[in-house]
């Protein structure tokens, strides 16, 4: 510990630093860390309002005068601050969730309110040491950007931001980032890999196969767009605990299998076939009929590129009056989509946009919405448990066609013939 660390711990830098540092130090002991190290950025998942405990924690820190010591972005909150009245959110929930938002803003964090901070101006750089919460963002930061974050939980992320210190362990360290198990795509045609469901499905499967190990994925024959990697990371961090992955040719630290494993041998090698992927895709659908109450897009938050892809699919068309069409995104992405001229056709289609939060983090859906369709494996994974909803998973085009038809329509040709 440095002199500054000790000053924080004994209260000479104020009570908020003392509280935060006491938690960081106790966690260093849990991790078995020999020392603390600096971070230069943080992303706070503790913003999600659940109930009195999350609010009390945030307000306790804020009332003690907590200030973040590094540039800090904020994850989704429990409420769409401007749009919640259009939904089933109770005024009491909205008020408390807004108080929790205010508490983190008072600490000096940037009100990004998004689970895709890597698609904002606060995207970290390769090799940067950061403390990020939000499972999808952690996996993306490590596996796509090559920034270095441990798998930080809510309540610890903010303590790291306040102290700018973390236990020097895990994915912060080069040797701990090595791959541990190998997943080989065998006989998976490029045409299937180009389908916009592919990486979400692969992520769902990888999360389950990896268990608590760092997976290395070999055999990707395409150059996946960033939003496909986002879908992969979110899926793998939902079905599993993936915080770091190596996709050969994609992850900056994985130009080759040998590099990904840092010249060590895999503990296990698993071959993944089209049949395995088909089965994983089937698991993401928990609805059995063609009934459809809502199409939901945007977990992680919809990006500008995704708005650009959606716009031509919906231009000049109308969603069926019986089907709600909702996109969850951030204020920044909505503004950029508007400027790019791709928001207007989406709105004209009948889509609604929710900002700052999502259907899982905010109790916004009315009870009559029971059947959902989505292209997000994360929504598909959590909605049955959190919302008691039945979900159909499909491509972006399937989602649009279903919304127009008023019932689930899926083009299965590619997945059946592959």
């Amino acid at each position, binding site marked *: 510990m440095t002199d500054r660390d000790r000053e924080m711990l004994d209260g000479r830098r104020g009570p908020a630093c003392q509280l935060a540092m006491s*938690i960081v130090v106790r966690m260093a002991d849990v991790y078995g860390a020999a020392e603390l190290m600096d971070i230069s950025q943080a992303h706070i998942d*503790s913003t999600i309002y659940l109930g009195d405990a*999350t609010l009390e924690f945030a307000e306790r820190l804020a009332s003690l005068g907590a200030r973040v010591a590094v540039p800090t972005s904020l994850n989704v909150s429990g409420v769409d601050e401007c749009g919640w009245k259009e939904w089933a959110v109770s005024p009491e929930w909205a008020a408390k969730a807004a108080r929790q938002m205010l508490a983190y803003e008072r600490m000096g964090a940037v009100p990004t309110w998004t689970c895709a901070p890597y698609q904002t101006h606060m995207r970290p750089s390769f090799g940067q040491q950061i403390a990020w919460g939000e*499972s999808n963002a952690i996996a993306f930061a490590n596996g796509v950007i090559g920034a270095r974050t441990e798998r930080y*939980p*809510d309540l610890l992320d903010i303590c790291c931001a306040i102290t700018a210190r973390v236990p020097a362990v895990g994915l912060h360290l080069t040797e701990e980032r090595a791959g541990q198990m190998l997943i080989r795509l065998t006989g998976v045609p490029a045409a299937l890999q180009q389908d916009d469901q592919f990486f979400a499905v692969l992520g769902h499967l990888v999360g389950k196969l990896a268990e608590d190990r760092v997976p290395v994925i070999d055999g990707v024959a395409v150059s996946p767009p960033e939003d496909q990697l986002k879908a992969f990371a979110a899926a793998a961090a*939902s079905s599993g*605990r993936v915080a770091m992955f190596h996709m050969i040719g994609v992850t900056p630290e994985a130009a080759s299998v040998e590099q990904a494993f840092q010249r060590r041998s895999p503990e296990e090698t698993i071959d993944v076939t089209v049949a395995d992927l088909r089965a994983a895709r089937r698991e993401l659908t928990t609805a059995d009929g063609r009934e459809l109450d809502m199409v939901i897009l945007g977990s992680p938050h919809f990006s500008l590129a995704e708005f650009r892809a959606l716009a031509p699919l919906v231009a000049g068309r109308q969603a069926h009056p019986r089907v709600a069409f909702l996109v969850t995104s951030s204020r920044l992405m909505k503004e950029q989509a508007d400027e790019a001229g791709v928001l207007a056709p989406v709105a004209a289609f009948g889509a609604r946009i929710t900002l700052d939060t999502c259907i899982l983090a905010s109790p916004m859906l009315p009870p009559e919405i029971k059947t959902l369709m989505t292209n997000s494996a994360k929504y598909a994974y959590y909605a049955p*448990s959190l919302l008691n909803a039945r979900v159909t998973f499909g491509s972006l085009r399937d989602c649009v066609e279903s919304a127009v038809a008023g019932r689930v329509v899926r083009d299965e040709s590619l997945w059946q013939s592959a």
Partner: protein
Amino acid sequence: MAERVIAGRAIVAGDADGEALVTDESLSFWGGYDFKTGEIIDRHHPLNGVNAAGRILAVPFSKGSSTTTAVLLEAVRAGTAPAAILTTGVDSFFALASIVADVMYSKSFPVVALSANDFASLRTGAHLLVERDGRILLSDGEAR
């Protein structure tokens, strides 16, 4: 009644006394645990529908959401948390939740890491006594 002692490693030290609830599948508490009731609600999990409040939950590790810790903190505040959590490795999420519950509410729960073999020997329904040093006294059969 058969009795034995398992030597665990106390990650967060504490005492607990309760009935074991054992699973070999990892769990995300966000989307997996209703802190208002203590019920496991993950539709993909074998313990879906089982109430874990006050029981000694043996789960290999946490998976999924970072918000697992916040759900556990809410559960401690609401009195619906497991009495202790036993894992296979050092699980930082469960430990953090217990540490923050101690800071905020002076109520923590023990988190103990077991060897893979000891973990595999646990059975739901056994009566467990968790001690501060990480030792677990186990009596098989009916919980007292």
